[in-house]
């Protein structure tokens, strides 16, 4: 097949790191990535699994690819949630998810853009500083509404009025998506129950911009620097994040650029600490059998497996049944890496497959500590009309500590407030 002379091979190679270029050649094509890939399980094409993409990338940085193959490579590159399962099973430990993100950015720098849906989404993040395309003034409204509805013990204060030892970072989804605002409210309530002195940035809270990194926007490093500067200017030292995607961004992606600046904890890490210190009293029983879904950004990407499980096991009456794939082998729900935008049908199939795995356990609910996974898994239950309930881990804690702040109460109160 004729090579596409227009493909700027040197530019693409320059966008990758030395190690990544070695990795591309080191792959022995054993195919373990293919066996475990949750996207390949739904669309079995070689170009989707890491082996296929590595093969294409190797040829691209060498001499370019022919038209059809080039198209196939691009499709495969974006038909991936960058969940990192292939990294875990790779005998060479190739850091695949990092490679795909870097390859996307390298291609963009070389003049080969992302799919249209991703470009629009990234543009919205840049323009509105959130991924929902809503005005920033709406970002912290959940806190006021929750206080007025009696869902909080005290009003949540803004950082500029009260710079507290801890900043609670809700993220775009829990701030703007009405179906997910319960996560922010419950996080705040749990922090209040533990007596944590915290505040929020409210309208000043920026989008973590990690989606820019996930989807290969070369401007990510600059955006990350701006946010780190903002946190530094505000004198923020500890950030508690309830979204696994934001956590990956703030904790890992920012650290790659500006190491060791601010302590970033995921909510589950912080709540686990509070429970072990005896500051959060889990007084009520929650008689339920649940299974736990490890978000990729928390588990495989940051090795946080124990803390959420410790939280669940601390709740009286609650029993945890593991799915056959859990921990480092947890199947991705497909919500990451821009897959939901690039290939929504594949994402839906992936989340449905995960729900099937959860149903196999016989549990009555699936629990996750990530609002994005919560959305994805809910879509999965809808796709296969499953009766399985999907909850954020906060819901389990709230049921034990302060049932009046349960999800249903929050949704009802917010709907009433909006006159729905």
């Amino acid at each position: 097949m004729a090579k596409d002379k227009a493909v700027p091979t040197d530019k693409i190679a320059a966008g990758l790191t030395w190690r990544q270029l070695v990795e591309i050649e080191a792959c022995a094509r054993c195919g373990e990535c293919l066996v475990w890939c949750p996207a390949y399980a739904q669309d079995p094409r070689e170009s989707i699994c890491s082996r296929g993409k590595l093969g294409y990338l190797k040829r691209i940085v060498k001499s370019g690819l022919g038209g059809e193959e080039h198209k196939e490579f691009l499709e495969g590159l974006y038909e991936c949630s960058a969940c990192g399962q292939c990294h875990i099973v790779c005998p060479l430990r190739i850091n695949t998810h990092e490679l795909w993100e870097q390859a996307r950015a390298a291609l963009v720098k070389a003049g080969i853009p992302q799919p249209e849906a991703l470009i629009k989404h990234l543009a919205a993040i840049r323009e509105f500083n959130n991924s929902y395309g809503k005005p920033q003034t709406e970002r912290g409204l959940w806190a006021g509404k929750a206080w007025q509805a009696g869902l909080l013990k005290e009003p949540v204060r803004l950082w500029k009025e009260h710079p507290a030892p801890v900043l609670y970072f809700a993220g775009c989804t829990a701030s703007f998506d009405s179906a997910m605002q319960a996560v922010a409210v419950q996080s705040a309530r749990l922090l209040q129950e533990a007596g944590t002195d915290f505040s929020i940035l409210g309208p000043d809270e920026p989008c973590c911009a990690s989606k820019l990194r996930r989807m290969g926007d070369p401007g990510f490093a600059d955006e990350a620097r701006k946010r780190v500067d903002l946190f530094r200017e505000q004198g923020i030292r500890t950030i508690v994040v309830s979204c696994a995607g934001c956590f990956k961004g703030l904790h890992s992606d920012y650290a790659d650029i500006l190491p060791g600046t601010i302590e970033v904890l995921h909510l589950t890490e912080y709540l686990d600490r509070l429970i072990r210190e005896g500051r959060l009293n889990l007084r009520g029983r929650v008689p339920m059998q649940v299974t736990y879904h490890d978000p990729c950004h928390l588990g495989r990407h940051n090795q946080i497996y124990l803390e959420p499980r410790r939280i669940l096991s601390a709740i009286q009456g609650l029993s945890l049944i593991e799915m056959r794939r859990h921990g480092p082998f947890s199947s991705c729900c497909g919500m990451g890496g821009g897959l939901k935008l690039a290939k929504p049908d594949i994402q839906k199939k992936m989340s449905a497959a995960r729900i099937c795995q959860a149903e196999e356990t016989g549990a009555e609910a699936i629990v996750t500590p990530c609002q994005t996974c919560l959305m994805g898994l809910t879509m999965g239950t809808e796709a296969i009309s499953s009766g399985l309930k999907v909850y954020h881990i906060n819901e389990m804690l709230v049921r034990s500590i302060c049932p009046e702040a349960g999800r249903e109460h929050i949704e009802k109160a917010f709907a009433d407030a909006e006159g729905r």
Partner: protein
Amino acid sequence: MEVIYPKPWVLFWLFVICGHLYLDYSLYLRWKGWSRGETTGFSIRRLKAPVLKIWLCEVFVQRQLFSLSVIRWLIHQCIFWGFLCLTLLSLSKFILLLLSMISLDAGLHAYFSNGTGYPFIKVWGDFFGLILLAGCVGALSRRFVFRPVQTAHDQTDTFLSAYLLLMTLSGFMLEGLRIASSPSDPDLYAFIGRLFMPSWFGIASDTGILLAWLWIVHAFSGAAILIYLPHSKLLHSLLAPLVIALNASEEQERKDMYWPKTKQYRPTK
């Protein structure tokens, strides 16, 4: 003790030198290609105990492969150790020969090539030859008989297994024919080579020519690996240890080093 038959040594060494130069040039071109990428400051100080532990376990014991599939691990271990130990044997013999030429081998060359150390060479060569042979047969069986879902149907991979198999078999055939032509006591230690002694030996009219041709096939195919290596899957034998070390050291830096118990889980398919 050794049977004398014509061996084109000059041609062989010329081939080895050219092959080596070609390998060096190919690796240089690759290095140049990799240098187009951003450099990430790697420091030898990053190689701390957990990184070294992972490196040793993954490179020499191939722990990850073991947890994924015991059969695959066994095949890979056979090829890895068979190939490595036979290469070490050839290299050691070559180094001792060079040292003996300048009388710096302390008599080791004579000891191993026709002294009491000769049986050791026989046992070493036959044992690791057998291991390599088993690995190649296993790899080809897996590819063509068991056909697991992830097998890449790349002709170069099949060629590599067949190539290593041919090289090993030609080595045993050469040894068998040599033992048949002039048996001696240390040949008892060539426990696999003896099985390859041709029963039709008595009829052969010119053993020397046959031995020479077998030697050419075996020695030249062995040296040709130098040329084939950068274009084949074998390249991972050089790059995998490097990549494992680099990745493990970065995991250590990022504090996300993992050691999964893969056997507890089952893949999607």
